[in-house]
């Protein structure tokens, strides 16, 4: 499967972007265009998931997958936090911030995995989009609690930054996060509209999808490589953890998915979600809630190392693991 992955145009565009940044080409994707593509991808994936659930109906797997996703979101940061402190030598603030990223999810990794798995006959269930949306934010809370519990008093934000509305504004920010609203909203629209009413808007959202994903991954390749080249904050232990954490979390996620009875495709996706690290929602929340944490560390790890690792190796790995576990356990 890894060779099929590496000859897929979607992945080749990512590699092209990565390569272009490495030879320091001036190729850039205008930021509003990248944001537009990400809005399009989220709306499309949400709609398609919702339409699918509308035609298959609710199933018990949907509920157990949702509960498992939320539970993983809350608990995965704990292991990550202690590994980051012990092996990674990070202080509590930075470790909490990084752990929150690894407990949350990357939408583009998810979307790419859906495409690759579908291409190989392991199409995940439509409701996994909803599960992804639910997994975006719980880790933020765990990460913050860990940072606050273990940080020395002097390291914590003082004065204006952790005043009363600091906490409530963060909770508000987390619950009304743009990508969560868009994903769940498009999912709901897909469910309300159903297959028939989806027809007129299908061409844009279904036909254009793969091509847009190519251009978006071209940009992600540029961004990931530029992050890696610029950073001065990534030690060897941290770089290793940026590969180790997705392997650990992804294996846990795939196992949990198999145990709660998901089909191999959906279990693999739960693994990919667990393995992936956020680089949009969580960084913004961390900048607000833990401004002392160093963005150089969490962005370089999640965007510069974990994202490419998952795109190129992780997805194939968890697909193989899910197939293996399905035979073994099933």
């Amino acid at each position, binding site marked *: 499967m890894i060779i099929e992955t590496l000859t897929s145009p979607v992945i080749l565009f990512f590699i092209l972007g990565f390569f272009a940044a490495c030879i320091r080409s001036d190729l850039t994707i205008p930021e509003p265009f990248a944001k537009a593509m990400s809005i399009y991808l989220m709306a499309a994936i949400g709609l398609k998931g919702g339409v699918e659930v509308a035609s298959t109906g609710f199933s018990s797997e949907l509920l157990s997958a949702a509960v498992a996703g939320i539970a993983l979101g809350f608990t995965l940061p704990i292991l990550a936090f202690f590994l980051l402190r012990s092996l990674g030598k990070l202080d509590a603030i930075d470790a909490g911030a990084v752990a929150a990223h690894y407990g949350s999810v990357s939408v583009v990794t998810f979307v790419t995995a859906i495409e690759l798995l579908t291409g190989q006959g392991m199409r995940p269930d439509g409701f996994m989009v909803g599960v992804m949306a639910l997994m975006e934010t719980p880790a933020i809370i765990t990460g913050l609690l860990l940072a606050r519990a273990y940080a020395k008093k002097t390291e914590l934000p*003082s004065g204006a930054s952790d005043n009363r509305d600091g906490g409530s504004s963060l909770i508000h920010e987390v619950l009304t996060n743009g990508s969560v609203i868009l994903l769940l909203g498009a999912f709901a629209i897909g469910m309300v509209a159903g297959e028939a009413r989806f027809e007129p808007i299908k061409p844009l959202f279904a036909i254009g999808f793969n091509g847009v994903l190519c251009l978006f991954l071209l940009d992600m390749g540029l*961004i990931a490589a530029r992050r890696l080249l610029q950073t001065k904050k990534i030690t060897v232990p941290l770089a290793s953890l940026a590969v180790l954490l997705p392997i650990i979390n992804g294996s846990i996620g795939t196992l949990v998915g198999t145990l709660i009875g998901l089909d191999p495709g959906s279990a693999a996706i739960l693994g990919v979600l667990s393995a992936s690290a956020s680089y*949009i929602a969580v960084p*913004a929340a961390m900048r*607000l809630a833990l401004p002392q944490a160093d963005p150089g560390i969490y962005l370089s790890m999640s965007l510069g190392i974990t994202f490419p690792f998952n795109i190129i190796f992780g997805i194939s790995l968890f697909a193989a693991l899910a197939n293996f576990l399905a035979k073994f356990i099933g």
Partner: protein
Amino acid sequence: MVATVQRKRIEILVDTPLVPRIIAIAKKIDISGWSVIKIASGGGRDGRWDHDEITGAAAKSIVLMIASEEKAGSFADEVAPLLESHGLLITIGNVEVVRGDRF
């Protein structure tokens, strides 16, 4: 010639996600308004940084405020504790404001 008054021009360079926090402080001490300008790219102790990113966390902005000397002073006092933790850069200059009595 038209009347002018002497005011302070405050410029705060800040990570975009933190802009609301700066504005909240400005409102607290009753500064009459603010304008936000996007920074396209920049660099400092961390080396070059570029804005062409989808993760808004790394974006930077300038918050520009015209205020009286007194309010500018209170603002600087209020915002000083955040300087280190939030990585702010605050400059204050003198300007004449045309018919600027309301600032």
